[in-house]
């Protein structure tokens, strides 16, 4: 499902998906990104030290690092609060 996400939401999705180590192709497929945009986001996260490249057999995987918690934790806290502190839509 390709929907309108913010840059921060895409970063979080990539980091969340790469917890167990994923190939670049898996990342762009799962996060619905084209190769160029996917590359830019992954490069940024690598530069921040939130993603690391690891070797698994003959494959290069992207893996979320422990440092990523400094972005993921506030992100999750804020999004959960968005739901907690706003009026509820109920039929």
């Amino acid at each position, binding site marked *: 499902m390709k*929907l309108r996400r913010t840059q921060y939401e895409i970063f979080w999705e990539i980091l*969340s998906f790469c917890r167990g180590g994923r190939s670049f192709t898996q990342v762009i497929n799962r996060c619905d990104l084209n190769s160029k945009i996917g590359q830019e986001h992954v490069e940024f996260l690598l530069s921040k030290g939130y993603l690391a490249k690891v070797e698994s057999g003959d494959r290069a995987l992207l893996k979320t690092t422990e440092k990523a918690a400094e*972005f993921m934790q*506030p992100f*999750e806290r*804020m*999004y959960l609060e968005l*739901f907690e*502190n706003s009026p509820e839509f109920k*039929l």
Partner: protein
Amino acid sequence: MTRRMSNIEGRLGRELWSFYALVVMNIVAGGVIMGLSMSYGIQNVIAFVQALPGLELIYSLPVAAVAIAVFGVAISWLVSSAEIFGEAQEIREEFQGREAGDRSSATSIIVKTMALYRERKTTIQRMAWVSRLVGVLLLGIAAYNLAGIALFGVWGEPIVVGTSIVMNLVMGAVALYIPHLFSIFSRTWDSRLAQGEKAEGELRRVLEWKA
């Protein structure tokens, strides 16, 4: 699972169900209105073709024209509803298959729901307007029919004529009620998107990101 997560997931589940029910209600209303307008259109086109010159002819033509217009609008309404239905269903399935109490699973569903609203906000607003317009048209047809009965008396089976007028009144009221529900939905999500934009400032600082 913490009590906080349990509360958040409870709200998330109720909201996803409510939105899903609203979209289903839209599809049902769109389908019924499409069928109703088709039946009206055909009935009045036939009446128009068969009518001898006279007042019946003046009566049939506008009803047929409005019914055909409503039919066209109902098709676009159904298509938009069906698109949103598919996306809402996907998110709902993810919610049902989530790991209960897991922050990441709940966050992922919130992110997708926000993205769905951002993507479909214009369509939802358009659907609300279409629904409002259809409601007015259906109530207009019902009033027109009542005026026709007052002027020319009941033509055809009274039970059929009565049922069709009642159907128009009921569906017109439903079509006017749906936009009200959409506006509550939009208010809720607009407020979340606004809060989300504020949260972005904090995330930007975390990332030291310069757009």
